[in-house]
């Protein structure tokens, strides 16, 4: 086998009450997803993405064909033990609080009590819900429910992660966080099936994609290959004089090539995060104390992302102990350690994922709107913004961000 996910002419026909075939939800689907691949399943609404996932997991029976997960059936508990699944919405037990929710799923995975406890704390911290962990999840906003849904998908340290629309309902910062997490997990050898119609998300993280329409694969391949415009080139440079530009144009004219010169546009995501960070900095003097706690938590969340991964993946608990220390920080504001920790984490995040990403996503830009800020750079920008500020201003940065996040998720 050697495929993490394999479907063999998988077909699902929904029939009406009389048994007459009505809709081909999935039609003769042959997917092959290799281990350690981030695979994006794209398609408009009703294209069969979710149905495919439900068949993979044994929630629906295929009308025809087979679906194999990690070489076995999706309904086999042995296979389930190695899978993390986030459905298209977080279907939570409204009467449980966040901690009880994770505890319940941890028990279903048969995790030993101490491992369970450790992972629950780490995950709560990672998804930034530690402060509200005692509230019933029925009172959570959609974004918060999404976070807890993600946490339950990770509690068993899965080899294969199936995420159906993971970023719906999340604010841009949360989205960014999930995307970073996906990359980080991929880096650690996990296979991820990402199902989405939010193209920007997919583009940022996926190695390969398949586009479904009408239950059939319309197009499949590596993101880079699919999007590269082989007959075009793009140059990004610093501010230059008109004269220099004139010269360049002259050279290109001699070559007989058309060119268009504009100021590059920033990605809205980057712009948004920058704006938020800036706004928070300015409002800092007024709402200092409270928000400090929050941002600490949020950043810790990102930071502990590294921690939890360590815990989940390498389970080197010895190393992890010092890393737990920052956790206390976000309880009392400030602390040099907090931001420093952030910096470490951010550095960590930037370094490994930037390189591989670059190659894939570099050629994506459209000629019409040259965007020198490619995805990895975007990330760097965001992270730089956060890191830079936190490095210079310590808790100052930390403070303002979280209330924003809270507000965001509250609205969602």
């Amino acid at each position, binding site marked *: 086998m050697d495929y993490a996910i394999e479907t063999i002419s998988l077909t699902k026909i929904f029939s009406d009450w009389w048994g007459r075939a009505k809709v081909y939800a999935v039609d003769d689907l042959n997917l092959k997803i290799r281990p350690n691949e981030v695979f994006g399943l794209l398609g408009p609404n009703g294209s069969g993405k979710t149905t495919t996932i439900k068949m993979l997991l044994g929630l629906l029976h295929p009308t025809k064909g087979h679906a194999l997960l990690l070489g076995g059936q999706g309904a086999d508990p042995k296979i389930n033990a190695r899978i993390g699944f986030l459905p298209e919405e977080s279907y939570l037990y409204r009467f449980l609080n966040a901690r009880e929710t994770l505890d319940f799923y941890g*028990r279903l995975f048969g995790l030993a009590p101490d491992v369970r406890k450790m992972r629950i704390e780490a995950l709560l911290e990672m998804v930034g819900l530690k402060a509200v962990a005692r509230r019933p999840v029925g009172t959570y906003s959609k974004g918060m429910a999404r976070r807890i849904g993600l946490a339950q998908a990770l509690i068993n340290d899965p080899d294969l992660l199936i995420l159906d629309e993971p970023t719906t309902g999340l604010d841009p910062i949360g989205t960014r966080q999930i995307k970073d997490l996906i990359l980080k997990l991929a880096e650690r050898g996990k296979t991820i099936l990402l199902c989405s119609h939010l193209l920007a998300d997919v583009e940022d993280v996926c190695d390969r994609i398949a586009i479904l329409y009408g239950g059939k694969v319309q197009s499949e391949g590596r993101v880079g290959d699919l999007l590269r415009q082989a007959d075009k080139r793009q140059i990004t440079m610093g501010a230059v004089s008109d004269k220099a530009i004139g010269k360049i144009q002259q050279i290109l004219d001699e070559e007989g090539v058309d060119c268009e010169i504009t100021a590059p546009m920033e990605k809205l995501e980057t712009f948004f995060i920058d704006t938020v960070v800036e706004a928070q900095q300015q409002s800092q003097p007024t709402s200092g104390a409270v928000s400090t706690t929050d941002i600490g938590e949020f950043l810790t969340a990102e930071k502990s992302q590294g921690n939890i991964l360590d815990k989940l993946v390498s389970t080197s608990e010895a190393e992890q102990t010092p890393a737990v220390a920052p956790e206390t920080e976000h309880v009392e504001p400030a602390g040099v350690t907090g931001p420093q920790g952030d910096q470490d984490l951010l550095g960590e995040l930037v370094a490994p994922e930037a390189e591989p990403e670059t190659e894939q996503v570099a050629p994506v830009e459209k000629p019409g709107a040259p965007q020198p800020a490619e995805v990895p750079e975007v990330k760097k920008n965001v992270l730089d913004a956060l890191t830079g500020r936190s490095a210079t201003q310590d808790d100052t940065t930390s403070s303002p961000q979280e209330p924003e996040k809270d507000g965001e998720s509250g609205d969602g």
Partner: protein
Amino acid sequence: MGRIWAVARNTIRQALRMKVAVIFIVLLLVLLPVMGLTASGDGTLMGRLQTFLSYGLSLTSLLLCLLTIIVATYTITSDIEGRQIYMVATKPIRRHQFILGKLLGVVVLDIVLLVIFAGTVYAMVMLLPRFYDAPEGEIAQVNSEFYTARASLVPPVIDVSEEVRTLYEEKKDQLKQVYQTLSQQEILKELTIRKRLEKRAAAVGQGVLWEFENVKPLGPNESLYIRFKYDVAENPADGQVYGRWQIGDLRQMRYGTEIKTPVWPEDRKDPVRAFREIEVRADVVAEDGYLAIGYLNPPLNRTVVLFPLEDGLEVLYKADSFTANFIRATLVILCRLIFLAVLGVLAASFLSFPVAILFCLVIFATGTVSGFILESFDLMGKNIGIIYSYTIEAVVQLLPRFDKYNPSKFLVPGRLLSWSFLGSVVLSMVCIKAFLLLVLSLIIFSFRELAKIII
């Protein structure tokens, strides 16, 4: 097991936090004490106790039954309709473990609530006499007839089929003229009843003898009660009938051998068609559990005296304590709850919430009046009866017979609810019927598609 228990815990949490159970708990906690204070029956202490016990236990049982049906169906259907099942079924838990976990949760909840409420009823029944200034006589009566678990022995039904057949063959034509409208079957039935009554009737100057075996009172110092009701062919002027009774091991009187156990003589005069009890010391019973009761119809009566078939005569003796009896009664209710929990699970495994709950309530109601339904089939004409006996009657027989296994029926008159009776309830209601339903629900749930069809 860990996974099953995780689901069970979650189910209990759900029931408690979704306030389904809370409403019932509050209702019971309010109603039981109120009933304890207001139930008065016929005004005597006995009446009060019987009324409260009867209503208290029935109410507890009814509300817990409803709660069980609601929780069992809701907890599964809501997981499917709210799609929480997506995130549970994709975990390493088998479908049958999920169902068993849900069932376990409901049953544990039932046990806890049943212990609480049955305990409340018990405590109130025990404390009630202290709140009333009852006269001595009433207290004695309550002690001997209520706070007890009396076993009841009725004379064995005598096989008269042979006699009936010969009689019918002999007087066929005559009988057919008398009973013109009846079929042969019905005539035979009529004759059987008459013959049986004959065996329980004493003409003037004659008598009836009943023999019992396996009479096992708690000890020789306890009392035996002969409970009887006279019926007469011709009403005496004062409505009273004389009787000369002999109670004990009458075998030993045969050849003038030495008498080891006492024989109790009793001459009395009692009203017709009313229950009366003769109290006898339990040492009249022979060592091997043999007891004979002889009734002589003295010439003073001038009428045939007979003892009605159903309740003409029975021997009562204290066989166990009230407490033990109460505990067994509670276990009978638990069996009922377990059955309903399984029924709810079965319904929820393939129906949506409103339909599932309707389905369960219909079965619950049918089970509660199953005796009535079965009786009505007996009364039906012969031809239609055959059709029904193979269809609806068969179905009704498959249902639990809640009315037949109603514990109040035993506790209120202070009758023994024996272990063997409890065993038969466990066997029929839990081990057979509930088990079959459970297997069915596991099969259905294991093979159904859990996801809704959404395109």
